[in-house]
């Protein structure tokens, strides 16, 4: 029975090891007052790592910077990332368990994440019941915050308590923004729309299409191509005879944006390629960036939107700080599409903590958690982040409705890069 002996040895080893481990909930470490934790819930392994890891690092940068300054209010900050990817893809069940873990750990005063809107639907009921603030850098589905889209179902027990805030704008801003740009500025008329059949991709493509038709443009084809798609040739060949003069892709690069762009160019279509912030994810040397996957020459004539103020000193500083901080890592050394927003989310939570501790220096962990939530979700407070001046409305949505437009420049250093073109304010629309 070799197996049982081996098993017994493993169990004993684990027990010994774990007995030496510290218990959660404040290890009385370096800070005078102990440690508080910032939870991060993202899909971090397998294929989803290309989405989750750069985002995680944005939050990590914020925490590391705070610790370098001596912590906040005497507390040391600790990042607590939990991976809810199972078999390489985000898993709502695991995400629910992770949120339970965060809620049960009293030292956790806020959570950054999640990345996918469906996960948000699962986690908000749990974090809302516990009053734990949760800031998402990337969720775009309206149903997570707006009562008219069903958000109250997610906070049935405490409908007036807002704990979920997000820095990403909802789908109904980015999609129409690019539609307006494509129609008025780029003067396109017939467009091929492809989405990756995810909450984000389909949502933003639907909104693009609606606006496009309102403006008077025509849609050559509207195709859904699941996130696993690698071969877009059939779609492109089918669309070619209909003479599209532009392509809009609703989705992120891990769903195939780079492959689509490359195959478009290979089939001879050099028409403008447009997409949301998921495709503006770094220069030609950055791992997993649109420009790298498609190739710098192929990526020419591509346009993307970012839900933030562009050409803004803080953004350049952030990019530099990020690259410097993570230059020793084996992968993902440069910011991805959502690193900035994650950094912003972490900034919001940490700033809320700081402000709360200024007036309640001796609060216990439970009070801190509630205080952070109250401060962050208060519509009258605003935060200076890398996305600009950020504040949240009564539903938890970002009030900042600036959209920046970026275009690819193959001749830029690092094998091509995204270059800021202009920005517009969609507030009030």
């Amino acid at each position: 029975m070799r197996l049982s002996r081996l098993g017994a040895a493993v169990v004993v080893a684990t027990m010994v090891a774990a007995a030496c481990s510290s218990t959660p909930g404040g290890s009385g470490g370096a800070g005078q007052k102990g440690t508080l934790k910032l939870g991060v819930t993202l899909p971090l392994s397998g294929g989803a790592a290309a989405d989750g890891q750069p985002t995680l690092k944005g939050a990590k940068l914020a925490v590391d910077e705070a610790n370098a300054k001596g912590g906040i209010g005497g507390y040391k900050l600790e990042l607590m990332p939990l991976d809810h990817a199972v078999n390489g893809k985000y898993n709502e069940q695991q995400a629910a368990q992770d949120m339970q873990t965060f809620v049960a750990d009293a030292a956790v005063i806020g959570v950054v994440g999640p990345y996918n809107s469906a996960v948000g639907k699962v986690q908000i009921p749990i974090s809302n019941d516990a009053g734990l603030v949760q800031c998402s850098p990337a969720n775009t589905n309206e149903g997570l915050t707006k009562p008219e889209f069903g958000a109250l179902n997610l906070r049935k027990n405490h409908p007036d308590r807002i704990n979920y805030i997000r820095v990403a704008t909802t789908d109904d801003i980015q999609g129409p923004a690019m539609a307006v740009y494509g129609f008025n500025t780029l003067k396109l008329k017939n467009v091929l729309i492809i989405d990756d059949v995810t909450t984000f991709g389909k949502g933003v493509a639907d909104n693009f299409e609606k606006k496009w038709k309102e403006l008077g443009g025509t849609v050559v084809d509207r195709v859904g191509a699941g996130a696993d798609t690698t071969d877009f040739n059939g779609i492109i060949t089918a669309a070619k005879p209909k003479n599209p003069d532009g392509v809009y892709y609703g989705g992120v690069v891990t769903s195939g944006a780079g492959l689509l762009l490359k195959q478009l160019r290979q089939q001879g279509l050099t028409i403008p390629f447009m997409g949301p912030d998921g495709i503006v994810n770094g220069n030609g040397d950055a791992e997993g960036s649109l420009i790298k996957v498609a190739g710098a020459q192929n990526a020419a004539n591509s346009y993307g939107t970012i839900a933030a103020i562009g050409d803004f000193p803080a953004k350049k500083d952030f990019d530099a700080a990020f690259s410097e901080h993570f230059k020793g890592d084996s992968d993902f050394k440069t910011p991805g599409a959502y690193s900035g927003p994650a950094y912003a989310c972490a900034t919001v939570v940490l700033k809320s903590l700081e402000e709360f501790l200024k007036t309640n220096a001796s609060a216990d962990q439970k009070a801190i958690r509630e205080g952070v939530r109250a401060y962050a979700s208060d519509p009258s407070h605003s935060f200076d982040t890398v996305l600009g001046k950020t504040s949240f409305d009564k539903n938890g949505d970002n009030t900042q409705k600036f959209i920046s437009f970026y275009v690819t420049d193959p001749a830029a250093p690092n094998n091509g890069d995204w270059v800021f073109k202009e920005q517009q304010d969609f507030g009030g629309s």
Partner: protein
Amino acid sequence: MSEIREIERPVPAGRNAAGGRDLRSRIGEIRERAHAFSSRHRSTSVVIGLSLVAAILPLIVLLPPLSGFSSQPVWVNGFTIAGIYVLLALGLNIVVGLSGLLDLGYAAFFAIGSYSFAFAASPFTGVDVPFWPMLLIGAVLAAVFGILLGAPTLRLRGDYLAIVTLGFGEIVPIVFLNSSTYTEGPNGIGGISPPSLPSIAFTSADPWPWYITMIVLIAVSMIFIYRLQDSRLGRAWMAIREDELAAASNGVNTVTTKLLAFALGASTAGLAGVFSASKLTLVSPNLFRFDVSFTVLAMVVLGGMGNIWGVAVGAFVIFMIQNVVLKQLNILFDNIYVPILSDIDFLQYQFLLYGIALVAMMLLRPEGLFPNRRRRRELHADESTLGELGDPMGATPQ
């Protein structure tokens, strides 16, 4: 090849080969007695066994090594989720373990159960059917789908059956994903209602009502499946697993037997689906991909195909490995410093470790943790003496 050795005289219970009594033989005797008791009083032993398990598990996690990882409510919550997989494994065990029908698309039935509750109890449809009757309805619906999806496979043999079930397992989530108007597509249907009992509240904060409900569901399923296994139907399943032609020649109606295998196997997935939808408050096509089907299959194989308690344990073990241990490795090695291991980001190695674990488990013990005795004899025939079911040519190639 195996030598023909002298057939040994049978050893009486409670004594060792030399005729004396020692600890080992006494334990052996106790095991024999327990085994005899449980085969005659199945339902009671299931209830007793599960109650013990249900009571011990939450207590173990209060002890030092395990309490360091998470608090008790988080552990208990994890066990409840493991219970969902136990239900799935129990059902697949009927199809694969008892009846020998290789089903690679079992997640489809899980999806049916979940979505049926989503349609019955969420703001999306506006209807609010209570949880408890829906359990039954979900199970029946899944069973009906079991028959529907099983019907085309009746004429198929072996691995053709596998690929067709795999196909169904792929088609069902694709249908749910692309029919946005009816199923909310990739967003999933959220806001699903929890169960309601007069004085007990099912919330996300309190894991105990969920835990107890799950234990009860597992107990009911196990009792039901044991009854089936011991019945004519169960024997018919095992007959078609061993030799379909001989079974048919003996009057077993292979068509109804197979369809019932699919139907009853799917019914526990329906139960699990309704429970999962309610607990998670969400269903989405993402939860029912091929890797779910495969994970449940691995649980059945690891547990020992055909053995009901075995697959339950197998399900629990694999769930713990995949969803708890592998995810916690980083935290473990952050807390205790080991020279090389603490620098590795284990999240990126999850797949690798899991794959190695699977390969190792199969190489070490291909018959599973708790195989039925026949299999073990077949696999290790050259190691043992010639028993009464022995085979002159040695291990029969399986």
